[in-house]
């Protein structure tokens, strides 16, 4: 049947002629393994085309959505990690294969006439491949791509004559943003692939004209189909296997934690969502123009150009960015011209010499770039910097600086020179960036805010909340974290107020009841209410029996648990506990309601316990600690942290100032978002803060 269908079809479209023309290529000298490089390149390009179009179906090119869409592909879509991973490693594979292909071509002397035009087409394809790599690097709109592209376009601005116009054309305006992304996207998925395909067709057509360049004394002959095609297929499979291995075992993806009930079930889901366990390509933290210290490096196959830049400082900058790279391209371009007439042997030799030297130089420069960035020696300790670390005898690893959390170089050791310090700084910056990348990947699992992925990091309680607590709160408050708490805390400095580590927990409250004068509570402050109360308790206890004291201790335990329970939403609180503990609290013997209030009951100037320890309670405390429901105007020592921005803030603040009356209040500006970040950091709540920005319109025109 297939034969008859084929006959029928051939009668109508003549496909056999076409297929024969493509496959029945005579290969003089026989099929060879060394001819496979070009085919593997075409094969990987096809993979790039297929995976690229697949990625396009889910990618969204904009400042606010690009990172989010790539994150979604990577972590949420079935086999998104695989498609993106193949595309990512495919570009790197192509770079390596181009090197092999070029080497094979010059060794065979296939760049010499009459194949010079094809050599030039190959060089053009090389240029387009570099262009594809450069433009693709930006598209995830992550930190790596963003900062590397800033550097790359600034390099483009040095092109003699047209540089600054070229830069503006590429960037899409005076500043990096949406249009940079849409342009790079258009180049990457439209212009450059189209150019690549056209050049590839020409390259193959020109190749067919003169065929393979076989060794002079070779014998035999074969057809492309199936003799060479079989070898090509094996080679492509090996290449594909390597790519797959890189995607799965490359170790550059960031694993994310998924809630129990959303975890992949069964082998299919496990595999489809393997991005969640770190398979696939790396995704850095979302691009943020407001990053004070990002250590920008290009993709590894551009590192040699990056390294070249270092050797030509100041006015020589063009040598490294323009003259040498273009000079090398020009030299490659001229290579075939040494193949005419008597020069042919020399031309053949020169070709090998130049390409081997070039690949060698690229390799050495890449290695030098790596050496410069590493404080420790590379290649099993053979070359590079040799940092001497301050070792921890227990773990056998470098000691960490308690202040900065970074490994410490041994002081006053001459081996730790400027270069080593710089490399150590760089590695630290990379480490910090990786932490942010992991964090962003994790936070993105809950969805990315409409403002864009960068708000995941800007508004992350874990990292940003920590910094804000440091500058606003840790000036007075200690914060002793629980052991192994990833949020961290502040234990060094001169503190003048309570320790907020564990604030509002049953343990914290219980300890306060036992010893309110401890530095952990009111010891450093002039708030004496609880201290006096405890003195009263001690006095009464002298008259009490042992059992009564033990019972009172139990009551304190219960009240502590009950107060801690107030931080939870009302419907989630323990009703039994509420009944018994509230009765004790109301009981005149313990004297709580003389000073405190709860749920509109009681009076007095000490803090109100309604929803004690909840976000609402803390927010009120931060914004108005001198209110009668907190410490009261007279006793309060804490500044008022208020949002002074945005429409309506004046009204709000005027009312606030009127309410303060004569009391001297120190008001410190703190935006709504920053305040929420502090509250979430304090309560170890790691959800990103969304929205709540000051209302704004477009810039006003005069």
């Amino acid at each position, binding site marked *: 049947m297939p034969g008859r269908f084929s006959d029928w079809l051939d009668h109508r479209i003549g496909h056999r002629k076409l297929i024969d023309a493509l496959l029945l290529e005579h290969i003089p000298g026989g099929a060879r393994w060394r001819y496979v490089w070009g085919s593997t390149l075409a094969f990987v390009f096809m993979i790039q085309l297929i995976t690229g179009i697949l990625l396009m179906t889910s990618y969204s090119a*904009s*400042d*606010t959505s690009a990172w989010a869409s790539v994150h979604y592909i990577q972590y949420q879509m079935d086999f998104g990690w695989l498609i993106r991973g193949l595309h990512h490693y495919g570009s790197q594979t192509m770079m390596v294969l181009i090197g092999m292909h070029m080497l094979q071509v010059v060794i065979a002397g296939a760049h010499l006439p009459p194949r010079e035009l094809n050599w030039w087409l190959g060089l053009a394809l090389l240029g387009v491949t570099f262009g594809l790599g450069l433009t693709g690097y930006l598209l995830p709109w992550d930190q790596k791509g963003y*900062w590397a592209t*800033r*550097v790359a376009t*600034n*390099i483009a*601005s*040095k092109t003699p004559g047209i540089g*600054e*116009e070229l830069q*503006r*054309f590429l*960037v*899409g*305006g*005076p*500043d990096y*943003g*949406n*249009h940079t992304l849409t342009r790079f996207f258009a180049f990457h998925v439209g212009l450059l692939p189209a150019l690549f395909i056209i050049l590839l067709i020409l390259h193959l057509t020109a190749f067919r004209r003169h065929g393979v360049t076989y060794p002079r004394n070779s014998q035999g002959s074969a057809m492309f189909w199936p003799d060479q095609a079989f070898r090509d297929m094996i080679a492509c499979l090996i290449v594909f296997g390597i790519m797959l291995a890189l995607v799965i075992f490359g170790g550059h993806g960031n694993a994310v934690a998924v809630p129990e009930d959303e975890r992949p079930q069964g082998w299919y889901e496990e595999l489809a969502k393997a991005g969640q366990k770190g398979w696939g390509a790396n995704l850095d933290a979302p691009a943020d*123009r*407001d*990053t*004070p*210290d*990002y*250590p*920008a*490096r290009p993709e590894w196959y551009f590192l040699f150009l990056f390294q070249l*830049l*270092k050797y*030509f*400082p*100041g*006015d020589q*900058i063009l040598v490294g960015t323009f003259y040498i790279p273009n000079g090398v391209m020009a030299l490659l371009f001229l290579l075939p011209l040494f193949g005419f007439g008597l020069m042919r042997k020399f031309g053949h030799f020169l070709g090998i010499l130049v390409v081997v030297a070039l690949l060698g130089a690229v390799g050495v420069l890449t290695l030098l770039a790596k050496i410069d960035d590493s404080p420790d020696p590379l290649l099993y300790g053979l070359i590079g910097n040799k940092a001497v670390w301050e070792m921890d005898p227990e773990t056998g690893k470098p000691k960490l600086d308690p202040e900065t959390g970074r490994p410490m170089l041994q002081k006053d050791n001459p081996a730790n020179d400027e270069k080593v310090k*710089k490399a150590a*700084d*760089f590695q630290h*910056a990379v480490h910090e960036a990786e932490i942010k990348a992991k964090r962003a990947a994790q936070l993105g699992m809950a969805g990315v805010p409409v*403002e864009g992925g960068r708000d995941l990091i800007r508004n992350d309680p874990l990292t940003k909340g920590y910094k804000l607590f440091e500058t606003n709160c840790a000036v007075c408050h200690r914060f002793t974290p629980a052991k192994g708490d990833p949020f961290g805390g502040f234990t060094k400095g001169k503190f003048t107020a309570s320790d907020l580590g564990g604030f509002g927990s049953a343990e914290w409250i219980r300890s306060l009841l036992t010893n309110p004068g401890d530095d952990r509570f009111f010891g450093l402050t002039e708030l004496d209410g609880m201290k006096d109360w405890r003195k009263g308790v001690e006095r009464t206890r002298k008259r009490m029996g042992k059992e009564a004291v033990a019972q009172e201790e139990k009551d304190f335990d219960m009240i502590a648990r009950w107060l801690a329970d107030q931080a939870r939403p009302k419907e989630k609180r323990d009703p039994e506990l509420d009944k018994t503990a509230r009765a004790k609290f109301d009981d005149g013997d313990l004297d709580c309601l003389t000073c405190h209030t709860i749920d509109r009951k009681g009076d007095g100037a000490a803090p109100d316990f309604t929803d004690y320890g909840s976000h609402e309670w803390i927010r009120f405390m931060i914004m108005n600690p001198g209110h009668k429901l907190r410490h009261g105007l007279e006793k309060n020592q804490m500044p008022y942290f208020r949002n002074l921005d945005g429409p309506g803030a004046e009204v709000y603040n005027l009312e606030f100032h009127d309410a303060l009356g004569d009391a001297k209040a120190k008001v410190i500006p703190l935006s709504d978002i920053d305040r929420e970040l502090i509250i979430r950091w304090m309560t170890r709540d790691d959800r990103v803060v969304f929205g709540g*920005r*000051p*209302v*704004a*319109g*477009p*810039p006003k025109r005069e």
Partner: protein
Amino acid sequence: MAHPDDRRSFLRWATLGLGAVFGAILGVPAVLYLIDPRNKKTRPSELRLVDGVRLDDAELNQGVPKQGVIRDVRVDAWTLHPSDALGRVWVVPAPNAPRGFRVFTTICPHMGCSVNLGEGEFACPCHSARFGFDGAQIVGPALRGMDELDWEPDPTDPQRILVRYESFQAATSAKTPIH
């Protein structure tokens, strides 16, 4: 009766000519559309508040540069960011400067990375340029020192500063604002 060759010649030229007209009608706007970024302007560099630095800051007055953020509405093509960081600046104590302080943009004049504070100097993490607190390059690949910005004390609170925040063309010896 015209010769058939003349007629063919006319048709040849007419077809090519009409094609050229069509090409121009589409091609010229296409090119102009593509080079539209030449029209985009940055916002005029008005004075804006530096967030996060006060001139009476204790550390600053002990000689440690402090970093501040400039925030404002930012429009990126079609996206309006109500309150975005336009950029960052280093405020450096400078006894010899007219008002005792100098303000530099954090953007490296070499290739546009963000310049960090090193030990007694500024250091760029990308291509290892190092600058003194006066902004001059100590060693490195940049063609000029760090870019200084105009600033004024905030009239409502003289310990806060207003800065004329601008970006400058990277990798040139001249300090040219990008407009």
